[in-house]
């Protein structure tokens, strides 16, 4: 292993009202230097718990984690020097100005005042904060506040930046804006580890994605690789209500050699994976027509990370209580 972040068999259990909940169940991964690594999964999958273990906030029950070459359990203080962390809540002081927040944060890393002041000026420019840097944070918009949160996370020029759900609650425009800033950090050599439950975010922003469900990793790779593994396109079928419809549809699909596999989402939609969607669609329609099956809907989609999630877990991420960006 030679990553900036390395996790081996990470485990975490919580006890709630006498029940033991295994939040993270033996997670392994390696994050390479200078990549944007996305941790994708529904709420409650174990993303934040994993992140908190990697950032020294939560004790590791079992397994081992190394960040920036340091063992997280053995040398938490040294790990803190070298990582930045932006929680879901952000945690900037409402009553202080953006600049004051950044100054204090930099000073807490042991830097001298003049050094921090120069760095803060640089950050205010880098993250487009300069025009409101001397207003109190409570007057900031959601997007402004989020950019300040990110600035707080990198004031000490960390090697690794952890972002927990960085764009939750932001509108599409501010989300795209923040993505641009995160890519800019990557281009400056910062390794970014982020969690998200937005498929589009993982797809558009991340160099590599790891999908976690119920404390276990179900897939890992670049978004392109993950989708390629699904093979081809997805034909999405919505069936009628009449008796036996699903059995008859299954017969038709089984007789069609170009359909590689089929999964059923919780909302009843059937996802059929084929090599060549535009060719398969009319052929499928002909076969359904011949079998006198009436469909309520049929559509063609290029595979998304949701198809990957569905193929690996049998559930759609969209159905898993996760909000989806539009």
């Amino acid at each position, binding site marked *: 292993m030679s990553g900036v972040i390395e996790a081996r068999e990470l485990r975490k259990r919580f006890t709630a009202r006498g029940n033991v909940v295994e939040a993270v169940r033996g997670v392994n991964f390696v994050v390479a230097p200078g990549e944007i690594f996305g941790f994708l999964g529904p709420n409650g999958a174990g993303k934040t718990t994993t992140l*908190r273990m990697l*950032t*020294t*906030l*939560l*004790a590791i029950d079992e397994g081992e984690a190394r960040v920036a070459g340091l063992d997280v359990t053995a040398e938490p*203080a040294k790990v*803190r*020097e070298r*990582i*930045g*962390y932006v*929680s*879901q*809540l*952000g*945690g*900037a*002081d*409402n*009553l*202080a100005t953006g600049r*004051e927040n950044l100054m*204090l*944060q930099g*000073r*807490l*890393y*042991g830097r001298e005042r003049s050094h921090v002041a120069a760095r803060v000026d640089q950050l205010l420019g880098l993250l487009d904060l300069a025009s409101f840097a001397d207003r*109190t944070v409570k007057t900031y918009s959601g997007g402004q506040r989020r950019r300040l949160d990110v600035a*707080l996370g990198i004031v000490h020029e960390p090697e690794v930046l952890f972002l927990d759900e960085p764009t939750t609650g932001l509108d599409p425009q501010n989300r795209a804006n923040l993505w641009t800033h995160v890519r800019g950090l990557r281009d400056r050599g910062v390794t970014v580890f982020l969690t998200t439950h937005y498929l589009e975010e993982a797809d558009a922003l991340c160099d590599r994605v790891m999908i976690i469900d119920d404390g276990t990793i179900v897939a890992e790779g670049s978004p392109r690789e993950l989708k390629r593994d699904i093979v081809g396109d997805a034909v999405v079928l919505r069936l009628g209500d009449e008796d036996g419809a699903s059995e008859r549809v299954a017969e038709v699909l089984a007789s069609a050699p170009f359909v590689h596999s089929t999964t059923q989402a919780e909302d009843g939609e059937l996802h059929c994976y084929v090599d060549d969607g535009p060719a398969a669609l009319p052929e499928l329609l002909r076969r359904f027509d011949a079998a006198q099956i009436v469909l309520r809907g049929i559509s063609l989609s290029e595979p998304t990370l949701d198809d990957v999630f569905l193929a690996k877990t049998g559930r759609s991420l969209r159905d898993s209580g996760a909000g989806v960006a539009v």
Partner: protein
Amino acid sequence: MKLVRDTGLLAWRRAQQLLRNPVWLFVSLTVPLLYLALFTPLLKDIPAAPGLGGNVLDEFLPGILALLAFTSGANAGFSTLFELQAGVIERLRVTPASRLALLLGPLVTGMVSMFVFDLLLVAVGVAFGFDVHVPGLLVLAVLLALFYLTMAALSTAIALLTKEITGFAAVVNGVNLPLMLLAGVLLPISLGPSWMGVLAHFNPLYYLVSASRALALDVFSGGALWQAFAVLTPLCALSLAWATRVYRRAVA
């Protein structure tokens, strides 16, 4: 030294917050002022009570100072709760700042504001005939600081453990009244039956109140003073150690 530096930075941060939102400063000052204004006059007509000799304020004002240390310490957890829920605590915990400094920073500011209020209360007292004994009051300041730190550390730790306002308020309010009544803040415990006196000896506030009465009169002999130091010093150290330990693990 890192601890001193980090504590200073975080104390200054809290001071800025207080100065920008001074409303609650006045709130915490109203309680002791109300006691002075609305309770002291009641005592004037019971001079026969044992332990209430001489000027009523000489007996009562030291108790009010102890009470202020108690309430401002016990309330320290409210801002901890707020900052926990706003993610501030988590943000600070990921920095390499000393864990003890994370705890002490806000407490130092709270202690300074308590001393400002103490001075105000003494000034008001003087206007109504309180007799100032400087050496005694200086020693009392040390005891008040010890007690404030103890209560504030415990309150912070309980806030971090309960994580939300209802649980925290239940604990604090549940403990507040019995400790206050069993400390002889308002009237000396010696007025009550002996079982109250026995119970009071399990209450750290009782030692502070007893010592404060003696010190306000510049009485350094007698058991009250050394007993107070003997109880409050280790208690303060234990509370700070425990709260720092809780701080290491706190997650919103």
